[in-house]
């Protein structure tokens, strides 16, 4: 143990002999009443009104999206299946490329 460690150990030993700062550990008069009143002044923990409304809105939006897809299913499917050759000629670039070749 070097001198610095030895002196540190002596300092620690001295500090341990210090009396505890305050003996009275009981709650001060009125403290418990005040804390209990403050604790119950806030509403019980439950989801906020905004949170509950947001959840409902998200559920309704999801249902509406599904209903919209179901109602337009034929049209959507038709759009993907429609691969008529005339579509290719709508593209002016491809027309120019075709002419050049």
């Amino acid at each position: 143990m070097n001198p610095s460690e030895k002196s540190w150990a002596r300092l620690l030993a001295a500090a341990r002999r210090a009396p505890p700062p305050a003996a009275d550990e009981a709650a001060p008069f009125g403290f418990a009443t005040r804390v209990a009143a403050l604790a119950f002044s806030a509403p019980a923990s439950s989801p906020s009104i905004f949170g509950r409304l947001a959840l409902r809105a998200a559920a309704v939006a999801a249902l509406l999206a599904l209903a919209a897809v179901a109602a337009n299913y034929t049209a959507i499917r038709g759009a993907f299946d429609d691969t008529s050759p005339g579509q290719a000629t709508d593209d002016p670039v491809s027309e120019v490329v075709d002419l050049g070749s």
Partner: protein
Amino acid sequence: MPDDEPFDLAGCLDRVRKRDQMAARELVEHLHPLVIRIVRSHLPRRVAEEDLAQDIFLKMFTRLDQYKGEVPFTHWVSRIAVTTCIDQLRAQKRRPELRWADLSETETQVLDSVITNENDVSPDDAVAAKELIHKLLDLLKPEDRLVIQYLDLEQKSIAEISELTGWNPTLVKVRAFRARRKLQRHYHELIERERT
């Protein structure tokens, strides 16, 4: 409530969960000694102990639904107390360094005495020695400070610190090792500054 009757913690908690204000008061009075001991040993500068204790109790009531009984209730509360103290210590600026000029006359005498004399410091100077160590602890991070406080000043075991803080024993040992090394460095620097 008579003092000789054992405190029915489980019953009291049930009543508090049903928002019984009287039960909440009884719970605060029952736990106050435990909480105030933690607050007093880690009290940040310029923070009133009653304010800090109140914060701890309010957190306890807010989080009561999260208590599942996996650890004793007193351990759960002491973890809230320790975490709240650490948060408060983190909020206050750490002391950048400690110089001899920052020490009181008695602290300087105590330091001189431990450096030069082989004899122990007189019991009258114990408070000054403790103050001096607290000034050195102010140089550390809150978690390091807490582990030194428990381990070297209060001489608690690793298992006890683990229960109080919720840190696993390995983490406590690692933190203690690093914190002691940092504290030794600060102490050495303080002594060297005096010599130069």
